């Protein structure tokens, strides 16, 4: 078994492709006849026997022409992949159970078109791409996620049967790719805002729209809260100031691990937290996150939401390798 694994590793060049773009050379393109190709060979054999039996000279010629066609088809299947340049692009985080799209930039530097390029992760749906001569395009290779965490989908199988379908040429590019998968959110009512946490009780309880003061802007603060007048008054163009409203202070939420039902498993509790994060974000509340060993101060906006979800995704997780 180990010999086989070593052989596979050597033959299929498992392991990451660090040099970008990944250029498909002959060393990494494999080619075998398809079922249709084998059928074609059998038909040719029968035809050859027929031509010999009936002494059909043109029958010989036909069989030889078709044999040549098969060989040429093999070359063209190979060339359909040869010299492609692949560059992995960004991967947007998704929730567990959703389809992650691994963007792959495919460049064809040849003056010939490439057709019917099929990209797929092992056991996943495939996506087909046609490329015009000397052009580039981006495919989103789908990967259905099942668990939260940082997943590496493994190698992509890039297959083509074009032009004749008699041969299947494929390659295993393996970009260093990973995707953050958030826990699948479980929507439950938000915990009641306590108007402060045990760790922090400096916030007041005044109404939502009451101006409560200025503070320096943090990433994630809505633009409409920027105190433009105050900024204009200040001579030095240092950091922006934002208005703080006491209502927001009152609504400040702590999404605490401890407030999720303790009888549930880790994954369920993380799911509940993810659901809270989403709900709180939709309600434009300021919220913070407390996990065992991790605390994210209250904040607002997309970036804050992302870092919270990311923390949930990576909670007590090592990198998981999913694909082969």
């Amino acid at each position, binding site marked *: 078994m180990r010999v086989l694994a070593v052989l596979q590793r050597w033959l299929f060049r498992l392991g990451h492709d660090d040099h970008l773009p990944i250029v498909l050379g002959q060393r990494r393109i494999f080619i075998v006849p398809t079922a249709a190709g084998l059928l074609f060979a059998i038909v040719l054999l029968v035809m050859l026997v027929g031509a010999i039996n009936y002494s059909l000279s043109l029958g010989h010629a036909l069989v030889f022409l078709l044999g040549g066609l098969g060989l040429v088809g093999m070359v063209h299947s190979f060339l359909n992949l040869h010299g492609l340049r692949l560059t992995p692009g960004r991967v947007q985080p998704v929730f567990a159970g959703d389809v992650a799209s691994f963007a792959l930039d495919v460049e064809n530097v040849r003056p010939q*078109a490439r057709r019917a390029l*099929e990209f797929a992760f092992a056991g996943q749906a495939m996506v087909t791409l046609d490329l015009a001569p000397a052009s580039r395009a981006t495919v989103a290779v789908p990967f259905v996620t099942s668990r939260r965490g940082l997943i590496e989908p493994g190698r992509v199988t890039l297959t083509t049967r074009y032009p004749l379908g008699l041969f299947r040429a494929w390659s295993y590019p393996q970009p260093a790719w990973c995707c953050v998968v958030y826990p699948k959110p479980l929507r439950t009512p938000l915990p009641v805002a306590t108007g402060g946490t045990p760790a922090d009780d400096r916030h007041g309880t005044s109404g939502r729209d009451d101006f409560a003061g200025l503070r320096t802007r943090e990433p994630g603060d809505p633009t409409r809260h920027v105190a433009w007048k105050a900024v204009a008054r200040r001579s030095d163009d240092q950091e922006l100031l934002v208005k703080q409203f006491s209502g927001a202070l009152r609504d400040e939420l702590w999404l605490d691990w401890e407030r999720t039902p303790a009888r549930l498993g880790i994954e369920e509790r993380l799911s509940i937290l993810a659901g809270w994060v989403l709900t709180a974000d939709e309600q434009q509340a300021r919220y913070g996150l407390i996990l065992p060993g991790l605390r994210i101060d209250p904040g607002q906006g997309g970036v804050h939401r992302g870092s919270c979800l990311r923390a949930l995704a990576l909670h007590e997780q090592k990198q998981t390798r999913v694909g082969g």
Partner: protein
Amino acid sequence: MSRSRPALAASPTSPLDHHVLPWLLAVALATAGPHAAHLPIWLSVLFVTALLWRAWIWRRRVLLPPRWLLALLILGTTSGIGWQFRSLFGKDAGVAMLVVFMALKPLETRSRRDALMIIMLGFFLLLTHYFYSQSIPTGLWLLAACTLLTATLIRLHGGGPSIPETLRHAGLLMLQALPFMLILYLLFPRVSGPLWGLPQDAYSGLSGLSHEMAPGSISNLIQSGAIAFRSQFAGEVPEKAELYWRGPVFDEYDGMTWRARKRPPGEPPGQPVIEASGPGHAYTTILEPHNERWLLALDLPMRLPADSALAPTFEVLAREPVRVRSRFSFVSSVDYHANRAETPETLRESLAVPADINPRARALANTWRGQSTAAVAETVLHMFREQDFRYTLRPPLLGAHPVDEFLFETRRGFCEHYASAFVFLMRAAGVPARVVAGYQGGEINPIDGYLIVRQSDAHAWAEIWVANEGWTRVDPTAAVAPSRIEQGITAALPAGEPLPGIIRLDAGWLRGLRHRWEATNNAWNQWVLGYNPQRQREVLSRIGVPDPDWRQMAALLAALCALTLLLVAVWARPPRRREDPVELAWRRYCSRLARLGLGRAEWEGPLDFAERVAREEPRLAAVTGEAARCYAELRYGRNGADQLARLRRCLRELPSYRRKTF
């Protein structure tokens, strides 16, 4: 054109792209359509109906017929074919079955796998056309059909929707496959077929002289303008009146039909003895297959081709019936004595006539008994010449006493009537005589110098045995219609006689065109179709591989194929993209730095990189800073004249040794 479409995992059973179906119907039409020429009409109607039905289904996007209906159709047509051909396994029945499959398969085609089956069936059907014709037009048609099949394969496996583009791509692939075809055609070890017994009807449809001469058998043959054989003489071509090509000899008559006599088991075979004088004419005949053993040598042969023998009645017989177009070389002399000493059995049999028919002819012949052989023959020829005998291909029907009716009532006939009546009279008068069938004359094609003998040159003449002379040819037709012998059948027949157009052609340019076409065909026959194991040996010894065994052949074949594959790959591979010199110089600079342990990360811009190099290796700070500045200016700034040169100079100044030796 770049498009990407999501799909489920590719599977052969995935449903067919809607737009592929017209291609499949075109494939069916192109591969099975030409078979309509020799299929029963009901099958052709079925074929067209099935295709139209499928096209309608495609257009309306309605459901395919249920499976049980198709099964019923298959069952019905199979029994129809069995009834029509009396078998399901012969050549014709087999082709008919394939055509039925091709007609019905589209009606159950749903997936890509079904479509593949149609294409494979199409490839196979292409081969079956060669059972019927291997002419140049057939070859060209099948080349076109092959391109269509290839285009359909391309379309099926992800080709674009543009029809001309797909066809062009298919044509390109075919073009690249041609060298392989040539190599394999020349070098693939040829085996003489057949490998096993062929069906009964394998050679049906080959025309030529038959084993017997019944009324009308030769006149049927004369209707055909098909070529019987071509001959090429090494020296001068003999006079037209000397060109008698001997086929079967008939020496038994039952009152209606002439046949070759079957010798009883005890009788010793007569020895054919030819005493030829004169130099002899050497010639090579390319005989069209006629499924008989006789080789149609010019009277009379002095030297025979290998694997053949001279029959007691002087026709040259091959060991096996001639079933493929073959070449034979002869030397013949037109000046000869044949069997001056004939066996008594043969002479006695050559006098036999049925006892109770043709009484008037017999009575007439009886009056000549006792005269010399030559005098009797001359009397009959005189009769044919002087009385009102006519040469026509449409004679009145004859009854129970055919010779009597012909000689004394109708007096209309062609070679078989004259030869038959003449031999009957001779035998009745006591002169040993027999009928010889064969061809007479021929036409020189000025393009390639071959003498072409057609089925319309079929002829029958008589032979009488003269003491001290042996068997002597007498052609009674020549007495009636001398122009038949001297100029050919068109000159001998009055206008309005049924003759195929091709041998009637008189207009000069048409005749020239026909000569050109037939010469092309002849070359095709000899060099393409006639490429057999023997020709292959000749070609191989000419290119320096005399007498190869199969291992050498296989090695040669593999080497040449591999070489061609390489050439095709190189041809199909594009020229390498010309690299931008600026990019090239900068990349070289960076890779040399990388060897010194200062690799540039993908995301690092040139100036950032230079800063980092300056931090990590101050000794390279100046040169790297200069190089990065040059590159950045070339890339992003105003293009100065000398930046590229400066960048290259930096590259040269960079030490190429490893970092640890600093």
